[in-house]
């Protein structure tokens, strides 16, 4: 029977009541431990009863020598130290090993006030040892107990996540707000989101930025018998409904791997950004150079990009392209033009090629006084534009008008120069 038909058979269940009486929030009533508490304990989870209810925890310790993929966890110390000594410009500069808190959650849904965080994994270094605490929500009635026990309300840490700026932390804030009457206030700690850094560095070089792909492509770590993340919500809701924690342990291991990978990814990104580690292709370095440029660290940016153009023969178009803008900024017009010309080696995407042509035309028209060259490059740009089928019509139109206008002006100037 379809859902609709089933519902219509229930029509008789629907009753109307007198206008609702004022729903009054009563004082906090501590919920009873769930009836399956013993089974979850027996499965290896530690049961904690605090003043708000019950929460479960699993704790794992790792020595610094522990290897995860191609790195050991202990390399974090050196990486964090590198940042402590840096100039503070970079988003990762908040790194200090003692304060870093690697953080990852598992939730019952993707958004909204009805999706719960059912597991929070916290990994930090305590007296030289890596300590992972995984808190597990004992049931929907025990959320206050769960959130309180994580201690995330205590100040003095920098949170490190993968996509946490748009997912984990906003989710945590939502949960916190739903329980805010009984909890201490949640702070607003420094936050390093490694997804953002990873995207910047490997943009154009990786198909997927899912953590699992990063592990395989960059960190040399391969999961075996992993439970895919999208199953986690079903496994948890099932564990609550059935009381059986068996599959939940798989989700705990999934979360554990996520957190270990966060540590080694942090190490890897640091060494790339600090130039200690040469990637065999120019792309990450070019991206890093551009990143510094966007952070307005122009000298550092040019340094990195020039290294790319010095060290590599192939795939340097992109580096020349960004270098062109930096040189133009510095007023080195001829060098800038040269860089843009170098950039047109065929490796740029159409839009960037179009911008490079525009820059060449501009430099020649306004700075270098070569009107013929300005005209030729306008025409090249218009030709390129015609072939760009994937561009939205309105946008194409705007480009077309801009180049037409430039071309017309350049031609007039040439006429005048001929006099």
């Amino acid at each position, binding site marked *: 029977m*379809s*859902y*609709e*038909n089933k*519902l*219509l058979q*229930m*029509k008789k*269940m*629907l*009753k*109307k*009541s007198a*206008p*609702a009486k*004022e*729903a009054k929030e009563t004082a906090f*009533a501590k*919920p*009873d431990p*769930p009836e399956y508490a013993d089974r979850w304990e027996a499965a290896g989870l530690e049961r904690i009863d605090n003043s708000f209810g019950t929460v479960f925890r699993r704790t794992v310790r790792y020595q610094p020598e522990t290897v995860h993929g191609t790195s050991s966890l202990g390399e974090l110390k050196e990486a964090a130290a590198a940042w402590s000594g840096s100039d503070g410009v970079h988003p990762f500069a908040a790194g200090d090993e003692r304060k870093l808190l690697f953080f990852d959650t598992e939730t*019952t*849904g*993707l*958004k*909204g*006030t*009805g*999706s719960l965080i059912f597991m929070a994994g916290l990994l930090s270094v305590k007296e030289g040892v890596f300590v992972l605490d995984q808190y597990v929500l004992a*049931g*929907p*009635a*025990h959320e206050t107990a769960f959130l309180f026990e994580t201690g995330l309300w205590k100040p003095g840490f920098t949170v490190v996540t993968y996509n946490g700026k748009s997912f984990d932390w906003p989710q945590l*804030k*939502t949960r916190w*707000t*739903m329980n805010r009457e009984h909890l201490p206030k949640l702070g607003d700690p420094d936050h390093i989101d490694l997804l953002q850094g990873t995207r910047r560095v490997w943009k154009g070089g990786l198909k997927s930025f899912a953590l699992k792909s990063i592990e395989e492509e960059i960190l040399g770590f391969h999961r075996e018998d992993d439970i895919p993340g999208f199953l986690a*919500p*079903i496994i948890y*809701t099932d564990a*609550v*409904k059935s009381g059986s924690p068996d599959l939940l342990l798989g989700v705990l291991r999934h979360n554990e791997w996520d957190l270990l990978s966060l540590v080694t990814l942090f190490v890897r990104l640091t060494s790339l950004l600090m130039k200690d580690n040469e990637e065999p292709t120019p792309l990450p370095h070019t991206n890093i150079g551009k990143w510094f440029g966007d952070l307005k660290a122009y000298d550092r940016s040019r340094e990195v990009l020039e290294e790319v153009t010095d060290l590599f023969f192939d795939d340097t178009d992109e580096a020349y392209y960004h270098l062109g803008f930096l040189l133009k900024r510095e007023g080195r017009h001829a060098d800038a033009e040269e860089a843009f010309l170098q950039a047109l080696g065929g490796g740029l995407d159409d839009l960037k090629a179009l911008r490079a042509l525009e820059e060449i035309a501009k430099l020649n028209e306004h700075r270098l006084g070569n009107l013929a060259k300005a005209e030729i490059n306008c025409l090249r740009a218009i030709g390129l534009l015609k072939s760009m089928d*994937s561009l*939205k*019509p309105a946008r194409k139109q705007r480009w077309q008008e801009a180049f037409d206008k430039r071309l017309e002006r350049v031609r007039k100037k040439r006429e005048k120069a001929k006099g």
Partner: protein
Amino acid sequence: MTLLKKRKTISELVESWLADPEIKSGILHHRVIEGKDARYAPFPESLHPSIRKALESRGIGSLYSHQREAFDLASSGRSFTAVTPTASGKSLCYHLPVLQAVLEDRAARSLYLFPTKALAQDQMADLHRLIEASGEDILSHTYDGDTSPGIRQKVRKSGHIIMTNPDMLHSGILPHHTKWVSLFENLKFIVIDELHTYKGVFGSHVAHVLRRLIRIARYYGSDPVIICTSATIANPKELAEELANREMSLIADNGAPAGKKHFLFYNPPVIHPTFGIRRSAVLEVRDLARRLYEEEVQTIVFAKSRVRVEMLVTYMKEMTKKKLSDTTIRGYRGGYLPSERREIEKGLRNGDIRTVVSTNALELGVDIGQLQACIMTGYPGNIASAWQQAGRAGRRQDEALIIYVAQSLPLDQYVIEHPEYLFGQSPEEARIHPDNLLILMDHLKCASFELPFSLDEPYGEFEVQELLAYLAGEGILVEAGGKWHWMSERFPASEVSLRSASQENVIIIDKTVPRDTTVIGEMDRFSAMTLLHEEAIYIHQGTQYQVEELDWEEKKAYVREVDVDYFTDANLAVELKVISEDETEQLENRTASFGDIAVLAMPTIFKKIRFDSHDNIGSGPITLPAEEMHTSSAWLSFERPADWSESDLTDTMTGAAYAMHSFIPLFVSCDRSDIHVVPQVKAVHTGKPTFFVYDSTPGGIGLSKRVHGMWEELLEQTARHVVSCPCESGCPVCIGAQESGGRVKERVADLFGKLSG
């Protein structure tokens, strides 16, 4: 030497027309409604000086009486509904108390609801001007799909006035209420503009969205006052009370001035007496509009579709084609950009534009100022809309002219024959039906997602514990610690569309521009069978689209914009099964029942029908699987007249059903497509000839329930209309086109007579 042409007043113009043989024969009625003076009230003592300053800077030195009443009610914490005809200064009814609240307490927040994004954006401009003139720092902003991500957070945290629409509230705000704490903790006013648009399925959904909104507001400790404004409908107070689930005061007495109004009812001449076909209303409208243009009377012409708007504009421009880039005649339809609207408004104000031809888009709140004359091309479908369109004419105390031009359609002809229908009675009631279990269940899920229900908590006026237990049984909720917790990865709001009652909708995708495909709407799958089959002409906001592909598996219809002079009408093979008979009324000559039915429907063929003339110009097959729907139905059975053959009965019932279907919208205030009429010569359930009238909406929306209560009236009126139709043996205006010389029309009248007895 030419004499200086003197402009005629409206009265003089009407007089000259009534004396003009060329035009007077078409004028069936002339009616004058006298004007009334404005009634003012002084500014309230308590009115904040900055607001007073802002009003005075606009040249407003006192309020209309209804605006003052609104302010006083709102200030005393009473929810109310104000009936505000076009151009009566309705927005001050809510702006004033809302701004006052902010100026008295900077933490105060208000939420404005408009039925569409465009209206919210229009109102934002208006409110911004008022705030600017007050010199106060008050943040008001729209919050909808177009709001840039950069400003969203600021609007959430510190917007004093949030202007949004029900859809956004439903899926973008309520399920994320933790991001709106400062709004919900301090919510003083909820403003519902254009109340009358919240009817039918949409209104029923919105009623639930409001129940959810109030529930969240209470959770955060606020108890907002609700302010509604509505066009003239029969039951504004009742509608508002049902929508908001609370008592409302009513401000019905409007203090705005109105000028004298001349109404002309114009019927195009019959050009084909046998088939009762009249000259095209569009052509008549063109001629009338030309006359007004030449008399320099600023006129708005309403047409029902974009195509007709464009047709009229093209015809009219013939007159001015000798002038270079003439802009005295403009089209206006849905989807215009705000800048284009501003340009048209400006043109009307300074007199550059003399005639504007519009789709019904303008009916809804958009303010383009007032004109001198209004022409309706065809009856807009209900009394409320007719008055709203008529309200566009009449600048302050000046006289206005409203011309209604009838088309060759049943309702149009009925109205022109019965002017009392328009003048003599109050406009329709707008009805909602929040009890529809499918709709209720959808929103109960959303409400559970937003905030767990406790074990003794009602939802709005509903006792829902049994329903919550059902949801727990389905594995969506879990009961723990005295509450029903959401325990599913789903996000229920995204599975519920406010514009339809079905679970699974067909998404309508416009691929007119291949690289710029956009979703333009959705439709429940039951309606989609007859409206979105391949080759169907689908009209969306006055624009015609042709369906190129209907992917039934994926529930997607791909459409492309076209411009054709026909529409499509699909035949549906329908099987009906009565599930429960809840009420029965046995009379001597008929048995009327009401209950739930299952409809098994399969579309068979579609016809292409030309506009206006309704000629059939082609057809094709539809291949789609059968669909089942449960809904409510009213049915009427009777004994077969002894002297009628089976085929007599079939033809007669088909004709009678056609006539009834045309008239039901008139009685229960709905669109033709909201209701179905199916004649069965021998129904399985009754074993007798039976007419089934059922709601198109799964679960029913209360329409057939109302039909059940008014059979007598419906049968009598329909009979009278059929009898008085001037055609010989049946035409599209009464019982549908018939072969000439037949006796069907006679029999239909006979049957109606027998039934209403």
